[in-house]
C-alpha cells in the first residue's frame, strides 16, 4: 500500500479489499458500548479542512479518536490562511509541531498531492476540488457490498453533476477495480469535457437518458447538484433538472427491488433526490454515513499503525 492516500489509484484491488475487510471489524467497534481502541495511541492526526464539511470532517475526527489518536481540527476560516499565509507555509508550520498524519480537504484539485511533497507525514485526501475523494468511494463500495455482496459484474449508475464531482472520479476507479460496470448519467451540460475518451479508456458507459438506464441497475448513486460551484447556465431551471435527472417518486417505482440508492450528501431534497427516495428502505444514505466512520478508521489504521509510517 502507498504511504499516502491521495487518489483511488494509490490502491490496488488487494489494498481495497484489505481496507474494506478491516472496516468490517471497525464497524463492530462502532456498535459497541466502549468505542475505543488503543491502536493509534501516541499518534497525532490533523484534520485541515479548507472547505466546508460536516460528515467527512466529523467522521475523520471520530475515526481518529476511537483509535486513540490525538486529533485536532484546523479549518481554513479562522486559521492563518485568512491572514494570507500560503498553503505550503501553513502545513509546514503544523508539520513542524510533530504531526504523524494530515487529513486534508481543499478546493483546489491537486492541492493535497502537493502537500504530500511538502511534509514527511502521511497525507490523506479528504476531497480536493473536482479531482478525487477516495475515502468516499471506499465507503460507497463498503455500503454497497453490505447489501449486494461482491460487486463483480454489478451495474452501478452514477447520476447528476458529473462536471463538478470529485466523488465521480474516485468511484469510477474504485468500482472498476472491484469489477462493477458503471454507467454515468447526466444532462449534456454537466458531462465533463472529454468524457467519451475517458469512458472508452476506462470501460464505462455514458447516457443522457436516466429512464432507460434505471431498470437495469443494481445501485444508483445520485450526486449532489453543487450550487456553489455553478455559475449558472448548466440547466434552465431546477424543476427541469428534476424532471430529467432527479430520482423522483415515479423513478423510485421503476427500480428493481434489490436496487440500492446512494447519495454522498449533503442532499438537495426535491432537486436531485425526492424525499421518498432518500428515505426509502432501499436507500443507503445513512448506512453510508455510518460506514464512513468505519472505513476511515480502517484507512487510518492501514496508513498510520504499522512500521515506517512515521518519518
Amino acid at each position, binding site marked *: 500500500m502507498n504511504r499516502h492516500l491521495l487518489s483511488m489509484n494509490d490502491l490496488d484491488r488487494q489494498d481495497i479489499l*484489505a481496507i474494506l475487510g478491516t472496516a468490517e471489524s471497525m464497524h463492530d467497534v462502532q456498535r459497541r458500548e466502549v468505542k475505543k481502541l488503543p491502536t493509534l495511541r501516541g499518534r497525532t492526526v490533523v484534520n485541515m479542512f479548507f472547505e466546508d464539511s460536516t460528515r467527512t470532517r466529523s467522521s475523520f475526527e471520530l475515526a481518529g479518536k476511537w483509535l486513540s489518536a490525538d486529533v485536532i481540527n484546523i479549518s481554513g476560516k479562522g486559521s492563518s490562511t485568512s491572514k494570507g499565509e500560503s498553503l505550503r507555509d501553513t502545513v509546514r508550520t503544523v508539520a513542524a509541531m510533530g504531526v504523524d498524519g494530515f487529513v486534508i480537504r481543499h478546493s483546489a484539485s491537486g492541492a493535497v498531492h502537493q502537500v504530500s511533497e511538502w511534509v514527511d507525514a502521511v497525507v490523506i485526501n479528504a476531497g480536493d476540488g473536482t479531482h478525487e475523494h477516495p475515502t468516499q468511494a471506499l465507503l460507497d463500495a463498503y455500503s454497497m457490498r453490505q447489501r449486494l455482496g461482491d460487486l463483480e459484474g454489478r451495474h452501478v449508475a452514477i447520476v447528476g453533476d458529473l462536471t463538478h464531482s470529485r466523488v465521480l472520479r474516485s468511484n469510477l476507479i474504485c468500482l472498476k477495480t472491484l469489477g462493477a460496470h458503471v454507467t454515468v448519467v447526466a444532462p449534456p451540460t454537466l458531462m465533463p469535457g472529454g468524457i467519451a475518451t475517458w469512458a472508452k479508456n476506462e470501460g464505462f458507459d455514458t447516457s443522457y437518458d436516466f429512464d432507460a438506464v434505471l431498470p437495469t441497475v443494481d445501485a444508483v448513486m445520485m450526486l449532489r447538484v453543487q450550487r456553489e460551484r455553478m455559475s449558472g447556465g448548466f440547466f434552465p431551471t431546477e424543476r427541469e433538472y428534476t424532471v430529467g435527472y432527479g430520482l423522483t417518486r415515479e423513478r423510485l417505482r421503476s427500480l428493481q427491488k434489490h436496487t440500492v440508492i446512494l447519495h454522498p450528501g449533503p442532499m438537495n431534497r426535491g432537486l436531485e433526490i425526492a424525499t421518498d427516495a432518500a428515505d426509502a428502505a432501499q436507500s443507503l444514505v445513512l448506512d453510508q454515513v455510518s460506514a464512513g466512520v468505519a472505513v476511515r478508521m480502517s484507512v487510518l*489504521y*492501514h496508513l498510520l499503525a504499522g512500521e515506517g509510517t512515521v518519518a
Partner: protein
Amino acid sequence: MTRPDFVPPSDGRSADQSAETARVVMSSGDVSRALRRVAHEILERNKGSQDLVLLGIPTRGVSLARRLVAVMAEVEGQEVPCGALDITLHRDDLRRQPIRGVEHTTIPAPGIDDKTVVLVDDVLFSGRTVRAAMDALSELGRPQAVRLAVLVDRGHRDLPIRADYVGKNLPTSRSERVQVCVAAYDGLDEVRISGGER
C-alpha cells in the same frame, strides 16, 4: 504442507524454514488427546459448563476453541458458547511490523458479562498476545473470571502470564520455531518444532 497464504504462522514468526529440519512433537492423535483432556479439565474446574464462554484467538485458536466446545458438548450434552477475539488492534508491536489484516471478533449472544471466559490460543510464548487479549476483553464487557487454555506452552515469557490449561509443555530454545497445524486450516493436526542451534 497445504496452508493458505493469508494464515499467519502460528507462533507469530516467519515460517520460512525448510520442511526437513522440522521435527514433529505432537502427532494428530496427541493433539486430539490433549484437547480432550483440556476440555475435561475446564469442565472439572468450572464444575460443569454453566456460565462458560470460550473465545479463540484467530486464527488457529478459534478452531481449537470449537474443538474444545465439541468435546464439552459430548460430555455435558450442552453447547458452550464459543466465539473469536481478534487482538490485532491491541498489539504492542504494531509499529514494529508491517500492517496486519484484522480478523473478526465474534462474541456469542449471551455476552461475556459475569461469565467465565476461557481464552484459547495455539502457542503460549511471550505472553504478549494474551496481554492484548485481556485488554480487548475489557472493552467488550466484564467477565467474572478469565482463564487461558493453550495447546502448547513453549516457555520464554516476557510478561507475568501463565496458562490455566496446557495441552503440552514444550521446552524450547528462543531461536526455535514452534508450528501448530490444525485440521481446519492446515489439513491435519500436528505440532512441529524447527530451527534453533541443534
